[in-house]
């Protein structure tokens, strides 16, 4: 379990009695880019059917966690399990097979710019199924209808607003009815209306399709409205965790600083440096 969790909620203790185990589980995972450590002993659990958010400041290693879950990176130590399978131990074929159970929403959508909205959503269907064009058309329109963009099927990605592009990317992420959907900063750079729309879509699609969602974000306000459980990551470690209500009521100094958006606290305002007076007086003899 987390290094210093403020509370271990019943949410993570398999309240539905599901014997299949968690959808995603990280156990004591450490990872470094070259010699720069990014994650240090991360342990977390994402139960099936739940929305779990990973929160933290920019560059704290949130996206790295998603890449480890997706098998794009391998941990230096520790275990990463998805649906009971150890992701780092899978060979290329098995990993690609597992990824068919994933959907991923990238920070800026990552739509294929040379394809229309329709073609973008049809892409995974055409790659992985032998469905007829008629059936693919119907499925694409159903996915687009779910995100409210059926009328935008013929548009190109360059013609979409940021919020629309994110919704199209969401429709593409659920194109093959995945088991797990990972969201990398789904709220970044959106206007308040689009932000609310994306938040509600994540919740509704999660519940309607019975998928499991892992949301990496630093948007506290929107996340607290939709997620079942949150992990706070700072300097590569989980420093707090809990349900939305537990987070709101938390006395943990890091959680207070993050939720309150305070400029100084456990996460210092100043980047580490030598004492101010000493640096200013360096040239004074």
């Amino acid at each position, binding site marked *: 379990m987390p290094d210093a969790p403020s509370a271990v909620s019943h949410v993570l203790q398999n309240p539905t009695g599901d014997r299949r185990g968690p959808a995603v589980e990280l156990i004591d995972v450490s990872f470094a880019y070259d010699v720069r450590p990014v994650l240090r002993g991360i342990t977390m659990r994402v139960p099936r059917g739940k929305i779990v958010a990973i929160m933290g400041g920019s560059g704290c290693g949130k996206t790295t966690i998603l890449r480890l879950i*997706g098998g*794009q990176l391998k941990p230096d130590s520790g275990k990463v399990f998805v649906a009971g399978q150890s992701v780092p131990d899978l060979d290329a074929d098995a990993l*690609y*097979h597992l*990824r*068919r159970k*994933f959907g*991923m929403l*990238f*920070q*800026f959508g*990552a*739509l*294929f*710019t040379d394809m229309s909205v329709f073609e973008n959503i049809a*892409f*995974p269907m055409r*790659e*992985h199924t032998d469905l007829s064009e008629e059936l693919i058309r119907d499925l694409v329109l159903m996915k687009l209808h779910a995100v409210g963009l059926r009328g935008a099927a013929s548009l190109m990605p360059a013609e979409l607003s940021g919020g629309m592009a994110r919704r199209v990317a969401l429709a593409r992420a659920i194109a093959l009815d995945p088991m797990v959907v990972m969201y990398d900063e789904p709220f970044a750079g959106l206007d308040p209306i689009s932000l609310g729309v994306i938040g509600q879509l994540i919740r509704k699609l999660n519940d309607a399709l019975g998928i499991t969602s892992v949301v990496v974000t630093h948007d506290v306000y929107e996340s607290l409205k939709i997620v079942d459980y949150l992990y706070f990551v700072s300097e590569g470690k989980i420093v707090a965790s809990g349900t939305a209500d537990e987070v709101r009521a938390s006395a943990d100094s890091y959680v207070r600083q993050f939720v309150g958006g305070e400029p100084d606290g456990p996460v210092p305002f100043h980047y580490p440096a030598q004492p101010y007076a000493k640096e200013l007086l360096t040239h004074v003899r």
Partner: protein
Amino acid sequence: MYGEVLGGLAHGLRRLGGAVTGGISKLGYASRFLFAVLWHSPQAFRRIQLTLREIYFAGVLSLVIILMSGMFVGMVLSLQGYETLKRYGADEQLGILVALALVRELGPVIAGLLFASRAGSAITAEIGLMKTTEQLAAMEMMAVDPLARVIAPRFWGGIISLPLLAALFSAFGIFGGYIVGVRLIGIDSGAFWGQMQAGVDFWPDVTNGIIKSVVFAVAVSLIAVFEGYDSKPTAEGVSTATTRTVVISSLAILALDFVMTVFMFRGAGT
């Protein structure tokens, strides 16, 4: 003072060593990349429309620059060749001069250089931007291998396009030479074509030109897709990769041309 010099020397040696090992490492990575692309090529060919699309973008859209350049090169070659041949009373040999220069040398080389500048840079920029905007990562997460879906079709599209473009470059160059030599200067049309027919052999002249253009096509296509795939996912990274494609491809074409010409001449002389 002495210590500073030694320190500077050591630093210089470290940088040199780093550059050499870095270069060797990148060469090894590029070789592995080539094998991976070849490994995934059957998948690309099974969906031939992907490769045909790249032939259109790399080849068909390069036609204007290739044909116009070929025409102008042939015209200049004809003017310059006529001036020289006239001194020796061999001006009726103009056809053979233009044809041999284009088919053996200028066609493959200039078409290769133009292809690297126009299509190679575009391939690198497109792949680099796909990487920067996480489109390649998105593909991987959808269990679609970008090497099979994006890289291999562009690689083969380039390999198929360049030899055809080089052939068209030579053909239009000969046509340009004909316009200037026969229509403007007034060389006899029968002599122009007849000398060419008698003096240019399919083997080795045309064949050597084809071999050169195929080798250039492999080099330029590999450099273009590799630089795009290996680019840093930033605006600066893509621009650097695009520049590298043009520079490395151009140098590779000229160096390979020299090496192949040496072997081809040796083969013809023995």
